[in-house]
């Protein structure tokens, strides 16, 4: 057994953290400025958008390294749809493997395509938005999705749309964000900008439509599950930042003539934060490591997200208690993590959803009936 990161992985995490710190300082959080777009190009050049793409499709798939990258980016709450571009879109597109999906993968890896992925719960996959009821209607799209983050960054929206024109019932529709009928209305939101996206009347001729054959839908769902641990890693990075900030602050802030870190009640908050962080980290690392080693570790993945979403919230609440007033000031640096902890809580499935999937994956109900015929 060896639970350490390699020197290269440590380096990758540091590079990612420093990169995200600079991206955030450039004001990119508000939207894709010139500085943010050049940062995007740099990420592509570093090969970060290739870590979820299999070699046969031109990438160099490495699930654990991808997690390490995301952890580093999470440490500075990297702005923009980096998770969509580095993890989710490549996984979904790779699972479909058509000429169209390959072309898009090339664009994503080159940094010219900036995707936002929209998946609703009705598809049976972990959802990325609260509601997504986009349908193929004749030769156009209809419906809406909300709330959608990072839309201002996107060149394309990848939406899993209900499609009754073929047996599979679903298609992946790639919608360029400059087509007619595409309407994004900003919503009042806590944290990063969020939109309600309406696609009524967007002509299919302006989109790429990838029909999903019945046997491939399971593949898409698996692709989404396979993307969850890297999201958890992003949250782990954010928890780590909350801890680092809190420890530094409690060893510097004086009240009553003492460092606040010397108060047991403040120490308690740091300790709770640390428990949250380590719980998130080790469930996540376990899922990433199993994923790198073999078949999709469904149990470990659901475990990781069920733990990490709640840990992220707890870590930020504790960090706020350590900081009190100053932590609430949006210029201080804790706010982006607080926002993330809430944005990502139900993203790709709420903790309750993952707990349910976990129990299903453990096959508990089945085994109990098998051994105890009197059980209900």
């Amino acid at each position: 057994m060896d639970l350490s990161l390699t020197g290269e992985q440590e380096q990758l995490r540091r590079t990612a953290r420093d990169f995200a710190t600079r991206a955030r300082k450039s004001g990119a959080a508000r939207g894709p400025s010139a500085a943010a777009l050049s940062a995007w190009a740099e990420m592509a050049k570093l090969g970060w958008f290739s870590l979820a793409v299999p070699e046969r499709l031109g990438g160099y798939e490495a699930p654990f390294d991808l997690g390490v990258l995301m952890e580093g980016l999470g440490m500075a709450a990297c702005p923009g749809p980096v998770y969509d571009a580095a993890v989710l879109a490549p996984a979904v597109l790779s699972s479909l493997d058509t000429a169209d999906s390959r072309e898009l993968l090339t664009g994503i890896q080159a940094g010219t395509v900036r995707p936002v992925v929209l998946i609703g719960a009705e598809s049976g996959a972990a959802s990325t938005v609260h509601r997504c009821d986009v349908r193929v209607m004749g030769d156009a799209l209809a419906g809406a999705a909300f709330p959608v983050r990072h839309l201002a960054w996107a060149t394309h929206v990848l939406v899993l749309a209900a499609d009754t024109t073929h047996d599979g019932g679903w298609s992946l529709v790639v919608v360029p964000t400059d087509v007619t009928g595409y309407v994004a209305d900003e919503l009042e939101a806590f944290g990063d900008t969020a939109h309600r996206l309406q696609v009524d009347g967007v002509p299919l001729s302006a989109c790429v439509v990838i029909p999903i054959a019945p046997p491939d839908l399971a593949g898409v769902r698996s692709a989404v599950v396979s993307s969850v641990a890297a999201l958890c890693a992003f949250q782990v990075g954010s928890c780590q930042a909350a801890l680092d900030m809190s420890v530094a602050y409690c060893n510097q802030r004086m009240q009553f003539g003492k460092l606040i870190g010397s108060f047991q009640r403040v120490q308690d908050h740091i300790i709770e934060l640390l428990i949250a962080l380590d719980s998130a980290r080790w469930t996540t690392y376990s899922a990433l490591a199993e994923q790198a080693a073999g078949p999709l570790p469904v149990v470990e993945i659901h475990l990781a997200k069920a733990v990490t979403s709640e840990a992220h919230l707890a870590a930020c609440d504790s960090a706020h208690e350590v900081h009190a007033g100053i932590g609430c000031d949006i210029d201080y640096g804790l706010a982006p993590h607080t926002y993330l902890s809430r944005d990502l809580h139900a993203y790709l499935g709420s903790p309750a959803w993952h707990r349910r999937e976990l129990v299903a994956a453990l096959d508990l109900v089945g085994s109990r009936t098998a051994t105890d015929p009197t059980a209900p």
Partner: protein
Amino acid sequence: MDFHVTYSESQQRFRAEVAQWLADVVPSELLGSNEHFENRDAYELRRDLGRSLGARGWLYPMAPPEYGGGGLDLDAALVVAEELRRLGLGLPPYYDSGGVLGSASILHWGTDEQKAELLPPIYRGEQRTWQLLTEPSAGSDVAAVATTAVRDGDDYLISGQKSFIGSLHGADAHWALVRTGPAEDRHHNLSWFMIDGSSAGITITPQHLLGGIDKNTIFLDEVRVPAGRLVGGENKGWQVAFTHLDHEHGLRSDRFLGQELHRAWERIVEGIADPASGVSTDDPVVVDLLAKIYVKKETVRLLGKRNYWLAMENRPRTYEGPQGYYLEKKTTQWLASALLELFGGAATANVFAGDAGAALVEQQALGAMAMHGGGTGEIQKLIMSRALRLGKPATSASAPE
């Protein structure tokens, strides 16, 4: 034991009178509106309403009538607060922390002259007042404030910096805790001033908090304040602070009514009925969560009710105020996570068709900030522990620390 406020026939008539009057004067713009994000026009409407309430003595209904208060008893005062709550409004119907807390201190500690001069503008709604306690290096340790007032003839000159103050749209006056004695005379070097907001030397810069909520940093540069505006005696500010903080930590009627959490509950009920919420009340997890939210908000309300009764009946109190305040803070913090569980992604962005959505989303910011304002959770625990004399031998003298 009787948990009900009993309303006599005349009180019921009073309720009808209040309700009718409010229906006539409250502008529709304020119904369901959120003060944190309102523009100047809406703020002015709130102030107009405050002046109208003040003219009838209903803005500060229990305050003595000789200073412009209503002179009503507890039950009648509650009727006014309840009828405003029905319209989604507090009492006062705008953020007036320095008015609520400052007037309680002035009433207790001020000279007759000061009461006659300083209370009527507050009670009549002519003046909105912020409270100025916190400084960059004096938060929990509020006794360590470094803003100083130096005597200059018949006036004082006040200089320093206050942070996390107030709200939007400015204030007419500032109720401020400052240092008037040497730094080493801890607890014997503080004084309270009512500072006119239009005085020269005051600079206000906005401070943006989570969720778009606004506070301010206030710079005071040799602000000239008449000596008559020092309330409670020079260097006696620490005693006065107890009146101020006691009110903040549990004696307010909005606590008695469990106002904030109850309003959140009403919005949750509205929110789950909204088709965009996607919440199904057939789901046992949802049912359990709703029950938990209700249980917690009712517990907070009943402890608040007890505290208010204790105070109004002048019964002995020790730990109760900070206990109620702490539980309210913790519940507000917890509620944010409960809403994420209940509404998922809809808890962080307003996707709702109805009016409840914006306020539900705001609960995320309120949850992250709940523990800090008015004394952190730790400070509430500290005050409770002291009141309970934990770790103190039974024989030791009970001198306040």
